């Protein structure tokens, strides 16, 4: 029932009741990001229970015992093209489309803000956000036509002049297919070299538009809005197919996964069911919700997926090398590899000697921690095993963005 920050949605069904796939089972509470929750499949409600999601615990949940028939409820909205942006965002919200990433704002809010602000560029981000992930590729390969059509529609509704589709240029075949599909539309294909973290929004904006997102700002400040491919797919299904958000393409991979791949996973599936489905070839040492570079390690495979979960990594023992921490040897690799030019060791030192006084707030703020993309490359390359990415994350919580 909790697919976002803030208060959970309120269950509106009772135990013993039969529900159909796509039927509303939780009503949105008052907070901005809240979206209704729909049944992922048809079946009988066996109870209202408390579950753990990757980002919260003790979340109310409607437990549905599937009847295997997967019967769908009639769509609430007719699958017609929306006339204006308000209509679109309202229908997106009603279909339960939430934010797609761990900290992402709701898609409808992003679109509404873009509409208010006015944008010149719409960027569809079909770059994989992390190594191991291939869900965006899968979505484009399976739903290319739908994505292109929806992107065109979104750009029209937002009044944007340019519509970009950024994708990994290594996928030659897909690139050729899409070039054919976008013929006659306003979509411009931007094949990019997929060097992690090229899929991060500020890097994408800089790469395509040649402009930098100002510190503490958003792409809107340079007249652009960035939407992930999976978000566009969710919009497309909600608006053009009249199908609420009940599932998501999830990459299940990692050294321990026996049959890694992209799976269409109903929202609310417990992670252990995913593990059972893909099988294990080695002992799992970490279960990570999200990609291997930024994902969240969870303590229990009992957690259930939400609308924010786009990947589950099953990492084996030999993959998770825990390097003992040593002194910084000033090799400069983190500075060299930081995609935004931060100084991670200085931030870590400042955070670790932090005392609550104003001077150090100034010092940390002067290192611009909010420019950090959270890509984790600094920790990844550090030969001394310093928790640099962790230090940057803590610095971001210590200081606010100065305008």
């Amino acid at each position, binding site marked *: 029932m909790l697919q976002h920050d803030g208060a959970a949605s309120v269950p509106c069904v009772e135990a013993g009741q039969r529900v159909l796939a796509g039927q509303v089972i939780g009503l949105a509470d008052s907070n901005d990001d809240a979206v209704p929750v729909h049944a992922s499949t048809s079946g009988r409600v066996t109870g209202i229970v408390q579950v753990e999601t990757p980002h919260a615990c003790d979340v109310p949940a409607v437990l549905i015992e599937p009847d295997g028939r997967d019967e769908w409820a009639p769509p609430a909205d007719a699958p017609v093209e929306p006339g204006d942006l308000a209509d679109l965002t309202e229908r997106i919200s009603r279909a339960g489309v939430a934010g797609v990433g761990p900290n992402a704002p709701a898609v409808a809010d992003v679109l509404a803000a873009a509409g208010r602000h006015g944008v010149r560029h719409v960027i569809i981000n079909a770059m994989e956000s992390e190594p191991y992930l291939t869900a965006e590729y899968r979505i484009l390969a399976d739903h290319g036509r739908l994505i292109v059509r929806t992107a065109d529609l979104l750009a029209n509704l937002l009044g944007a002049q340019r519509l970009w589709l950024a994708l990994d240029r290594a996928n030659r075949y897909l690139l050729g297919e899409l070039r054919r599909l976008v013929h006659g539309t306003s979509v411009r294909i931007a094949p990019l070299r997929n060097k992690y973290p090229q899929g991060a929004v500020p890097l994408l904006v800089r790469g395509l538009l040649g402009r930098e997102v100002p510190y503490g700002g958003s792409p809107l400040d340079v007249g652009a809005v960035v939407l992930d491919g999976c978000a566009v797919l969710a919009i497309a299904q909600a608006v053009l197919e009249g199908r609420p958000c009940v599932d998501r393409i999830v990459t299940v991979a990692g050294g321990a996964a026996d049959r890694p791949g992209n799976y269409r996973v109903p929202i609310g599936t417990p992670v252990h069911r995913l593990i059972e489905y893909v099988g294990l070839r080695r002992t799992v040492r970490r279960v990570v919700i999200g990609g291997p570079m930024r994902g969240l390690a969870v303590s229990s495979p009992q957690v259930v997926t939400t609308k924010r979960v786009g990947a589950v990594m099953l990492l084996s023992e030999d993959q998770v090398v825990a390097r003992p921490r040593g002194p910084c040897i000033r090799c400069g690799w983190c500075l060299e590899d930081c995609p*935004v030019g931060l100084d991670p060791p200085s931030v870590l030192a400042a955070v670790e000697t932090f005392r609550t006084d104003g001077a150090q707030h100034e010092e940390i703020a002067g290192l611009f921690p909010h*420019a950090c993309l959270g890509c984790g490359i600094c920790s990844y390359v550090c030969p001394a095993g310093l928790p640099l990415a962790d230090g940057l994350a803590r610095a971001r919580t210590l200081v606010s963005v100065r305008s």
Partner: protein
Amino acid sequence: MRRSTDQDKRPAWLEIRPAPHLGGGDSFAQMTRSMLIVVGLAGLAGVAVFGLMAAIWLAVAVGTAVVAEWAYVQLTGGRVTATYDHAALMGLLLGLTLPVGWVDDAGFHPLGWAVPLIGALVAIVVGKGLMGGMGNYLWHPALVGRAATELLYDQQMHPERWVVLGRNHLFAAVPKPVESIEYAGWRISQLPADANAWVLRRPVEWLRQLADGLPAGDESPLTVLIRDHLPPWEDLLLGGVGGGIGETCTIALIVGGLYLVYRGYVRWYQPMSVIVAAAVAAAVLPIRIGPAASFDWLPGLQTDAGLPIGAIYVLYHLTGGELMLAALLFATDTVASPCTARGQVIFGAAIGVLAIALRLYGPMPGSCYWAILIMNTFVGLIDRRTKRRVMGT
């Protein structure tokens, strides 16, 4: 496919750690191990050229360094973490800069065992430990140790004449030197039967004299110098010239440097900036080659009867002394060099220019080491001035 059944017996638990969950690149221990291999290669070349005695001095330096590290950790009550591999590396690097012995009219004198011992002790205790330990030292510890031995053991550290084993006597134990017969290069000349080593001057000592002025004859002094006094250049490449244990074998140093670049521990531009800047400085900085005591600029462009003698002069500068060792293995120390690419190039270029300037006009031999120590001092300044701009600011 299961790797082992032992894993299955462990209790099933899941680790909770912050992202990233994968580790890439090499650890500090792996870096140090590779450095030890590379430095050991140069040391091996030194043992070949200067005899087994060189191996003894290297062993004394390494052993002292490791024991000193252990003792320092004990004395500080375990507040600092011991990095024995790094201490061994510092000892080995120090050993590479030491001469194997010296020659006077009475014959060959081995280096005193106290020289590598005191040097390594100072390197680890003063240069590393007291400066804050691993990661915090300002000056390269091995060079701090060397500076101490230079002050304490002036005669042993700065011999005028050096011995090099004859090419049929490599690895032989104690040099029995000869100097009176005609020497036409290490690789070409044959030693008399009762000797196994040559007595030579260090090539850079000849080059140093250029700044003091050479007597001018009919021919260009550069030509005279290179033709009549300096060894053939291939000897400089192979290492059969006077110098510190690890300084002379240019090929071993270049192979080692390329390996470090291949492993990604050293960025190519860091040693390259030292070498290129030194070449430019050698080509530009004036030497006295006229009849009077006048300084002539741009010696690197001189030609003599169509022979680019200036270029050869520059080449001798690069390979005739400690410059290659300093550029490839000392200036690339991660702690005592700037972090950013721009900073490293500035740092390297300054070392190259300083090294040649000090060699030509300075009072001390081993100018490249002093140049590095001087530039180590400015690492903090360079780092502050070469910060990258944060995106969006």
